[in-house]
């Protein structure tokens, strides 16, 4: 018994006495392998005082570590590169407890708020304060099978709206299988793909939150887009089918030409390049067809920022590193060449790299095409409830699909009242959650602090 007691005492003392290894300079977490490789190569050339050690983490691991550190005020990396959904998790509580440093004043003082594409700040701005340096813009274009479309003599230059798209491209859907179903569809889209629904809603001027971060789901625009998507996926004039991204089977369907076009942000160009090399030289991009004549020809999908942990010492030094990483011309070139991602820093848009012809995209200068659309990308929310809203709107889309099929009603105007009713339910559900958050709904009142 005494032996056990002594062992317990000694091991406890040893644990407490064990020296914590000192951290080796600035620490940074990222979830993107390309970023780590490129940043490390760049940092190796910098003076030692500005060196940072970069750790690659999977997205869930980064999310857990970041939240644990922020919630419990324990050490995290000094610089954290976070994707939109993950960063939003830091904005759940009161403003003063956001774990990222407020960069608003620094950005303004150095004119970066003007030099960086405006809409790119949206996902990192909570209650008027900016907590991250934007990494990207992620405009969305329409990627299409140029080999098939051009062989049919179709000129995509005649397409301005989604109605044009359907009219001009529909001859490509004439082939039927033995059961009378088209062997090919115009668009890779399905009613349960919440990311794609959000892209289309944002393009149309809809979305889930208004400019003041209030829940705004049951709107006429959203109802129209949702009804249109159901008509596209389920109606007698169906034009859409599902070839899921990031899956071997979905990629195979794309290779076979089962779907002719897909919503394609800049980063998705890289996914196709890597995962579907068979399509090299057979694909092109074009601006998204607008919802109405003169409407927006792009949308936005995804996003990453670099934040500085508020608890880290030497905020000035960290700001210099962050700025250097995200505003470097060399790195912007590398990230575009290897990741197809365009920088949000407008003064770098004139770089010739964005005018290089891309053999995968049939020699198009797609960098310039994405940049031309960058100022038009829609603004987005930083609400931590965006994920929840997306799920509820997807549920509304699925219910609307069931409604349409049970009644054989696929006309957009016919579906809109039911779409609005379902969106009202979704809005109520999200609003209930948002209103339960006393930190966001009642920011003026100070929470009780329990040290």
């Amino acid at each position, binding site marked *: *018994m005494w032996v*056990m*007691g002594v062992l*317990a005492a000694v091991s406890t003392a040893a644990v407490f006495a064990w020296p914590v290894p000192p951290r080796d300079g600035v620490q940074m977490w990222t979830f993107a392998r390309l970023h780590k490789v490129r940043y490390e190569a760049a940092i190796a050339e910098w003076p030692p005082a500005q060196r940072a050690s970069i750790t690659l983490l999977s997205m869930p691991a980064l999310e857990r570590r970041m939240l644990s550190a*922020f*919630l*419990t*005020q324990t050490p995290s990396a000094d610089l954290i590169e976070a994707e939109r959904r993950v960063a939003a*998790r830091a904005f*759940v*509580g*009161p403003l003063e*407890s956001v774990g990222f440093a407020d960069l608003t004043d620094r950005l303004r003082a150095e004119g970066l708020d003007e030099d960086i594409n405006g809409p790119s700040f949206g996902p990192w701005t909570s209650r008027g304060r900016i907590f991250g340096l934007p990494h990207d813009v992620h405009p969305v274009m329409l990627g299409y099978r140029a080999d098939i479309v051009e062989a049919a003599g179709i000129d995509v230059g005649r397409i301005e709206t989604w109605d044009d798209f359907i009219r001009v491209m529909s001859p490509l859907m004439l082939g039927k299988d*033995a*059961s009378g*179903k088209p062997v090919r569809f115009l668009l890779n889209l399905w009613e*349960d793909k*919440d990311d794609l629904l959000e892209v289309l809603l944002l393009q149309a001027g809809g979305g889930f939150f208004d400019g003041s971060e209030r829940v705004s789901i049951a709107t006429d625009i959203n109802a129209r887009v949702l009804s249109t998507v159901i008509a596209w996926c389920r109606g007698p004039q169906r034009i859409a*089918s*599902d070839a899921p991204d990031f899956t071997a*089977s979905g990629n*195979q*369907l794309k290779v076979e030409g*089962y779907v002719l076009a897909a919503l394609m942000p800049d980063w998705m160009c890289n996914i196709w390049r890597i995962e579907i090399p068979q399509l090299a030289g057979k694909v092109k991009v074009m601006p998204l067809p607008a919802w109405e004549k003169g409407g927006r020809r792009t949308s936005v999908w995804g996003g990453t920022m670099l934040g500085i942990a508020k608890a880290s010492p030497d905020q000035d030094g960290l700001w210099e590193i962050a700025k250097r990483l995200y505003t470097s011309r060399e790195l912007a070139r590398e990230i575009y060449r290897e990741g197809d991602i365009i920088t949000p820093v407008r003064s770098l848009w004139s770089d010739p790299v964005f005018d290089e012809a891309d053999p995968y995209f049939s020699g198009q200068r797609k960098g310039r095409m994405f940049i031309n659309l960058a100022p038009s990308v829609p603004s987005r929310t930083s609400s*931590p*409830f965006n*994920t*929840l809203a997306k*799920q509820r709107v*997807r*549920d509304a889309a*699925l*219910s609307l699909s*069931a409604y349409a099929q049970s009644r054989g009603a696929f006309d957009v105007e016919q579906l809109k009242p039911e779409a609005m009713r379902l969106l009202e339910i979704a809005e109520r*559900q999200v609003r*209930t*959650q948002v209103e*339960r*958050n*006393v*930190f966001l709904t009642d920011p003026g009142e100070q*929470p*009780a*602090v*329990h*040290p």
Partner: protein
Amino acid sequence: MSALSGKLRSAPWMLLAPFLAVSAMFVAFPLVQSVSLSMRQSFGPAHTRFVGLTNYRDLLSDPLFWTAVRNTLLFTAGGVFIQLPLSLLLALLLNRPGLRARTAFRIIFFAPALVGVVFVAMIFGVIFEKRTGLVNQFLHATIGWDLDFPWLQTFVMPALILSALWQYVGFNMVYFLSALQNVRADLLEAVRLDGAGRWKAFRYVVFPEIRPVAGFVVLLSIIGSFQLFELPYVLLNSTAGPDNRGLTLVMYLYQMGFDAGDLGYASAVGWVLGLILVAFTVLQRRMSRGEVSS
């Protein structure tokens, strides 16, 4: 003498002390904290606001919570009324005297239990996929079935029950098999001499003998079903499926705690889930006691 007996009396406590200390720190304290948390809005331990029983009150009027309860009960019913009878049937088949390759069958049926839930979910995700999935491809080739039929959109709960059945039917079979092998041979022989057929022998001899094990397996199955999370989470691509038809109680807890960031509300869901499981355990214990005394 009295000093020695005092030492002997304190010895068990000294030996238990490390376990008690660890349990107090990592089980009892978090448990008490979670009660407190369920009555608060929180953003980490530093920022909390007391909201009383609001979380519980909201929960009871929350339609999504009741959807999660209904789905969880449906899955549990599938486990208890489909999976367990199948497990028992397999065990009875494997317990037949003279069966060849019994060990091989046992390994084959048990093997899926060795595979992780995430892996099972991914396998069934591929099987049920539209267009390229095994089920649609097979049905299309045999009866001209629609290749685009969305199984995971149309039959969410059956898909979950089937996936769980594939994984756990052999696992539960092992419990039943070990119970069947302990049924007294003299009783079986006596009932057969009395002219009872297979069904009567099963009903009046075998089932009463394996009943305690069956009760235990039922309880395990209920608890496991109420903790369902990974299977729908992976199978339905981190969502609750169409119209929340794959939303289970633990998924709802996760959504509230980690997607919506409402840890207080999630704690309230956790406590309601805990109370439901305690109720089932008490019920099972009472039924077991009743069986023993009868």
